């Protein structure tokens, strides 16, 4: 893909990124940060590409380390964010119970 197209994509993505998180209440800052943190674990795709093209052992080992690290980032990130958010929804159930009493 040529440089201008990539630049266009980059600039548009910057604006989308700014736009989607503006005006978020401070209560949700932690899950939002954690979710964004999980998303950059998608570097796993890059690590797989590099490991898949590795021809000597050293390159493969380093690439596999990258695969390992990014998997931890990706999987751990989404799981821990989900756990945080389960607690928020648990709260709503309790609240409805309280009002039912």
């Amino acid at each position, binding site marked *: 893909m040529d440089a201008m197209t990539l630049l266009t994509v980059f600039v548009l993505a910057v604006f989308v*990124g700014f736009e989607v998180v503006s005006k978020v209440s401070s209560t949700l800052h932690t899950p939002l940060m954690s979710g964004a943190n999980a*998303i950059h674990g998608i570097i796993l795709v890059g690590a797989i590409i*590099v490991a898949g093209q590795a021809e000597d052992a050293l390159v493969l080992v380093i690439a596999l380390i*990258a695969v*390992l690290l990014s998997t931890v980032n*990706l999987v751990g990130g989404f799981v821990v964010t989900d756990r945080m958010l389960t607690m928020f929804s648990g709260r709503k159930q309790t609240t409805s119970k309280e009002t039912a009493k």
Partner: protein
Amino acid sequence: MILLSPEWAALLYLAAAVCFILALKGLGAPKTARRGNLIGALGALIAVVTVFLSSRVDNLPWIIATIVVGSAIAAPVSRRVKMTQMPQLVALFNGVGGGAAALVALLELSHVASIGSSLAVAFTVLVGAVSFSGSGITFAKLQELMPTRPITFPGQPIVMALVLLGALVAGGFVVATGSLAAVVILLVLGLVAGVLLVLPVGGADVPIVISLLNAFTGLTVAASGLVLGNVLLLVAGTLVGASGTILTRAMAQAMGRSVGGIIFGAFKGGSTAGSTAVSDRPVRSSSAEDVAILLGYAQRVIVVPGYGLAVAQAQHTMAELAQALEAKGIEVIYGIHPVAGRMPGHMNVLLAEANVPYEVLEEMDEVNPKFKTADVALVVGANDVVNPAAKTSPGSPIYGMPILDVAAARQVVFLKRSMRPGFAGIENELLYEPQTTLLFGDAKDTLGKVLSAVKAL
């Protein structure tokens, strides 16, 4: 195995990118947050399956085995970690992501064709290494493996400037020659720079730094996307970089700080930052029974929970005490500081875990005017967020941070483990005020005693 044409792969990557945008959007509102996160995970799954089906992937068994091992490490840890330790886990995940991006870029150096790509390689290696080591230090600070107060040494700004200058030179060599030695030097300098960047950051500001490093890692992923010519990495990384920057600013504002002030504050602030001297001035400490009487004859009690409550796992006892007081017709509300706990919103998560109803949790701006009419402010394991030094002493590391006005309440009761200062490492004048009573001990223990004394009233 190439089952998908480049067009199909591009379409699926586009779908994954849309998922990530929807995920960030969803995470911004309480109702949609959980679904948003799941949509993000779905996007990641689509992307990973697509890469396997659309490009030549040798060493397949090795790669699959590594992914399985990585998942087997990460999932149980994330599921079992105590909610109090969650901030450092997020820091750790962020660091390994940055490290992975740096390694990917390092390996791609031999394949780069244009100056733009080699610039992107140099950027990714440097910033990825900064994120990796910086996150490591934030992890150590939050886990209290090392002192949480700002650490500075003479000449630190000069060392930092030299390291950055060295990195610039090494980066120049990488772009000009594509030399492997230069890129390894760049990696090492990045690691050193990350350590130097985070060491001088004071304990209470660490969450903001995690968010900043999170944005850094996002940018490195975007740059790796440029190197590999992969649009999904570019979009996902840029999204995280941009939203992370906004989020960092929002967090800093919630604490009344500027991002620049946090990173360079310890250099400017000088000697006042982080005195850990424990004063031997007299304080008024009392028994659980006395506190129970104070609470039992109050009309309005405002509870200010802090990290100490969470560490002692005292949320449930606290909730029981609140119920016992409410049964006596006493109004109990919780005043939640934006950074109560260790991260913005952390305390809300912890109290939600203890089934404290949402309605009685009030944010700082809501609750502050109510302290004037409160009979007792019960501060459980919080310190920095109620420290008047944030208003009165300009030299203090927390100066300018908005605080909960507990001093306005008729009586202030502190439940503390000891006279040890809070996470920011500074003393709290409020402890020595005449309206203040202290009750020492583990929060769960002492709350339990207060609870039975209240019931006996």
